[in-house]
């Protein structure tokens, strides 16, 4: 039987997603370390499937101001991926790369935006490349797009993209560790349902054979 929505992913499928998450975020942390010139580690992420409104409540308030980097996946896996950057992590990165910190998101100018876009891009492309390697599927990523705005409005973008198929999001939550600091990290991995089935067949196997 094929999967019709994210919530139909079973324990084994979620374990596989967590494993991919761990490998993906691990390689992302290594790549980020090189960019910021400081060791970055990442905890083993948790995979959560949440209904739209629950996802926003889980990640903070709908009016919380965050930065987000979005890429579209194409080729064998289609869909979107999004990386959320909260203020404390934004400052941890800016401090190390540009030697400055900001007090609010309105102080983000061209240079800062470009650094954050690159951080998000590294995060998401390391992640996508881990999945691509493990599943033996080609994943092409678009040029990253950035938004600095209310959390609710930002998350509604990938939700709308998936909205004709499902009411849930797949969240990959972990902690990024820089020195003594721990920062929340959230990646949204949102293949369309057809791609999700393809991925699960490759990674878990048996989803098509169970009919």
């Amino acid at each position, binding site marked *: 039987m094929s999967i*019709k929505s994210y919530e139909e992913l079973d324990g084994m499928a979620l374990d596989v997603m967590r494993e991919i998450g761990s490998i993906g975020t691990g390689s992302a942390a290594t790549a980020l370390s090189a960019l910021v010139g400081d060791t970055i580690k990442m905890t083993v992420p948790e995979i959560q499937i949440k209904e*739209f*409104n629950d996802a*926003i409540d889980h990640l903070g*308030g*709908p*009016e919380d*101001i965050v930065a*987000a980097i*979005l*890429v*579209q996946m194409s080729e064998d896996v289609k869909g*979107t991926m999004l990386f959320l950057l909260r203020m404390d992590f934004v400052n941890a990165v800016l401090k190390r790369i540009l030697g400055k910190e900001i007090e609010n998101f*309105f102080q983000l100018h061209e240079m800062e935006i470009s650094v954050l*876009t690159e951080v998000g891009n590294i995060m998401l492309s390391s992640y996508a490349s881990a999945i691509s390697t493990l599943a033996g599927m080609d994943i092409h990523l*678009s*040029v*990253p*797009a*950035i*938004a600095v*705005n*209310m*959390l*609710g*409005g*930002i*998350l*509604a*973008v990938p*939700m*709308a*993209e998936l*909205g*004709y*198929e*499902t*009411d849930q999001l797949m969240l990959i939550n972990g902690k990024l560790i820089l020195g003594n600091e721990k920062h929340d990290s959230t990646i949204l991995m949102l293949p369309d349902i057809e791609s999700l089935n393809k991925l699960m067949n490759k990674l878990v196997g048996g989803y098509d054979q169970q009919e």
Partner: protein
Amino acid sequence: MINKNSKEIKVGIADMKIARQEGVLITHALGSCIGITIYDPMIKLGALIHIMLPEATGAKSSSVYKFADTGIKETLRKLGAFGGRKNRYICKIAGGAQMFAGGGAAGALGHIGERNAESVKKVMQEEGIRIQKQDVGGTTARTMLMDVSTGEVKLRIIGKPEIIL
């Protein structure tokens, strides 16, 4: 003025709430989504809808309020059952922004807000309801609230003072 003591009734994404006489209907952080208020001033009956997509055609989802067409129609049916009359309705809309900038992904996903706004306007026109005020498009999220005791609609946008729509 929106009465600060008035009870806030939260409207989620792909959701709709109706209130009568009192209460503040509020929906947070409309990005590419559209918030639609419909108010019957004679009986102080108000609804706030938070739609996410233009049309329900071909959708596998069961949520009527996710879509402009089915969401508005179902809301009008319910308002009618509460005694609301189309010829008295005051309708205001907000949202439909393009949230992401600067990449391939922004282009492909960016038009959803615009399409949402077009669909809402089309459905309202078909229903014969005039949209009295609107604040749509742009690049920023909006929180929309309506005080049902007065029909006043307000918008909150980051970095800007609250505006009355």
